[in-house]
């Protein structure tokens, strides 16, 4: 399960999708929306994606994680559209026979996603909104 979606993420379902019976570990990362950024109160975030390319890049990162870390499966979902405070904007589940590769690969996947996948967030606050670009 690798995709963009507008609806809230079911993290338990994502973890279940990643895990097979040969796996002794599932590492789950949730990126959640904070109510403050750079000292300013945030009301909600809005995500835009170059959807076709984003899903392709996400598939590529998952494949690279499998090769580099020897994990079994990588599942990930990124939200598009409006995401409320406290909701997950991104969820990554990595399954492996043992915990170390699952956790290392999970870190690699979120770091690479944030650096490479064509998705942008727009921060809405009292009195306006700004694109966050290049964090």
């Amino acid at each position, binding site marked *: 399960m690798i995709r963009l979606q507008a609806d809230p993420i079911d993290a338990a379902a994502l973890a279940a999708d990643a895990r097979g019976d040969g796996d002794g570990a599932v590492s789950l990362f949730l990126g959640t929306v904070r109510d403050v950024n750079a000292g300013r109160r945030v009301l909600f975030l809005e*995500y*835009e994606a*170059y959807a*076709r390319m984003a899903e*392709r890049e996400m598939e590529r990162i998952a494949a690279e994680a499998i090769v580099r870390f020897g994990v079994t499966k990588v599942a990930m979902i990124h939200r598009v559209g409006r995401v409320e405070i406290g909701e997950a904007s991104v969820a990554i589940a990595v399954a492996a026979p043992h915990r170390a590769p699952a956790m290392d690969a999970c870190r690699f996947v*979120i770091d690479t996603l944030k650096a490479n996948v*064509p998705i*942008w967030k727009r921060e809405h606050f009292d009195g306006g909104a700004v694109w966050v*670009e290049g964090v």
Partner: protein
Amino acid sequence: MIVRILYFASLKDRAVASEETIEVPETCDVAGLWAIVQERHPRLREVTTRPLAACDMTYAAWDRPLGGVLEVAFLPPVSGG
């Protein structure tokens, strides 16, 4: 040749369009296309840091020739996660 151009995030706001299709010279590269779209959309001239470009959904160098490319996207620095 005909190229479809996509804009995202702040670049979309500046171009006041998410996509357009234009005719470009066969010899055009990504840098040349950026110069053309800056001519068409004055607010893109205010962009001081060169955006990323993707040709047919793959990140491309600035001197990548556009021969055979159907779709070019101009992308501000990404901020997903």
